[in-house]
């Protein structure tokens, strides 16, 4: 079988069936953009929740017996040895008092000695879902007097996060199914006009693989085109929307994922889906016509 013929046939059919090719690419692009946008939104919500979670800190008070600052600081290693701890920051009793006084009226505190305060660590967690376990582990460290953690608060966050994850998962899975359905039907429609041509090929003795190959070339080309266009459009759209958000009043509080952080993954996924849909959609669509 000659390569030149295949490539020529593949591209000839794209140009001679211009409108259907255009429709196929347009549907692939539309489906990918919807899927991509929902995914990016979900990823951003996830980051936002993580951000908020990180502001949820645990305070670990050091036992009075370790009043010596150096000895208290030594606990840092033990605290950070716990898996779920992402960071532990030491705050000496002097700093704690200064913080406290700056928040309240200093005159109220007159005569109070810094010994009233304990050395402490401000601890951030990797995953607040395991806060109560981590709290127990922290309490078990020798030299730790008390651990302050907002367990209820953590539980609420975990619930929100789980709901968001579940909803976006369901949404994405649904979108994938709907998209595949729409895309494969568009391709079926696009190849419907070709069944005569295929029947003629079969009648003059063309093999199935010979008939199929131009469709594979065509599917590949249309798929790559669709994937690339969808990627560029998603890029523009994302930057437009996030740009607006960041410039708005609420934007200063938001921490959006920069597009370049997800660009490669998005590109690979878009290309993979659209090429898969193009090639298998094309081959699948003509399967029935090959049965004569």
């Amino acid at each position, binding site marked *: *079988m*000659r390569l030149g*013929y295949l490539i020529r046939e593949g591209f000839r059919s794209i140009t*001679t069936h211009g409108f259907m090719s255009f429709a196929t690419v347009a549907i692939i692009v539309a489906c990918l953009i919807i899927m991509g946008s929902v995914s990016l939104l979900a990823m951003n919500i996830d980051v936002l929740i993580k951000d908020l979670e990180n502001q949820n800190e645990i305070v670990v008070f050091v036992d009075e017996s370790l009043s010596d600052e150096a000895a208290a600081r030594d606990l840092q290693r033990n605290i950070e040895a716990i898996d779920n701890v992402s960071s532990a920051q030491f705050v000496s009793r002097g700093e704690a008092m200064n913080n406290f006084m700056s928040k309240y009226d200093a005159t109220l505190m007159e005569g109070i000695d810094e010994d009233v305060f304990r050395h402490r660590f401000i601890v951030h967690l990797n995953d607040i879902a395991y806060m109560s376990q981590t709290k127990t582990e922290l309490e078990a460290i020798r030299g730790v007097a008390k651990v302050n953690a907002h367990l209820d608060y953590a539980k609420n966050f975990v619930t929100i996060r789980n709901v968001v994850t579940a909803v976006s998962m369901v949404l994405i899975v649904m979108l994938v199914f709907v998209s595949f359905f729409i895309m494969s039907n568009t391709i079926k429609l696009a190849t419907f006009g070709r069944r*005569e*041509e295929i*029947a*003629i*090929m*079969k*009648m*003059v*003795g*063309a*093999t*199935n693989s*010979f*008939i199929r190959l131009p469709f594979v070339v065509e599917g590949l080309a249309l798929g790559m085109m669709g994937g690339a266009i969808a990627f560029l459009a998603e890029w523009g759209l994302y930057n437009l929307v996030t740009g607006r958000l960041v410039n708005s009043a609420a934007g200063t509080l938001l921490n959006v994922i920069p597009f370049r952080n997800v660009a490669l993954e998005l590109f690979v996924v878009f290309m993979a889906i659209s090429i898969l849909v193009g090639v298998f959609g094309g081959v699948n669509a003509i399967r029935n016509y090959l049965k*004569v």
Partner: protein
Amino acid sequence: MVLMKNVRKVYESSNTVALDNVSLTIEDGEFVFLVGPSGSGKTTLMKLITGEVRPTSGKVVVNDFDMGTIKRRKLPKMRRTLGVVFQDYRLIENMNVYDNVAFAMRVVGAPNREIRTRVPYILELVGLDGREKRMPGELSGGEQQRVAIARALVNSPRMIVADEPTGNLDPVRSLELMLLLEKINEMGTTVVVVTHEKELVNAFSKRVITIDSGEKTGDSSEGGYYGV
């Protein structure tokens, strides 16, 4: 060559016995008319020859291939020994005359050099020289059917089967087309033609096989529709 022995074809979907107990032999080099009323099973018989349908029972052998047991992937090889012509021409509308014919050679992987010499030769044979660049829509019915015959011929098949090739043509074009098929037959290709047209059949003195309600009711080597 075609050999049928006690062939029965039942369409399950419509619960129709399209052919029943049909036996016949067509030797290489013959010219045969296949006639019979509408719905008698003529197209079904042609489809058994081309491998589009398989016999429910009985034996069908075409150009040394057993059509009852032939493997799907062997069908292309078998079909390259056949040229098929339909009533509605079945040309590719967005290809010109030359490409419609060359297409048949390309899909069986013929080298370009061969295509360039063979296609003009065949187009001249069917009387279409000078029409190479026309699109099917710019041709008369008779001319379109000639393109279809050129396409059927171009890969040098052993046999040409035509299902009502003159069904859409006026009597003069029909006669011309039959004369073309006769010429092709004289050059050595077996020809099987299905037709309704009594006058046409009677204008030639060829073998006529008659079927009625799925059964073979006549086979005369000296022509004549319904023995007339």
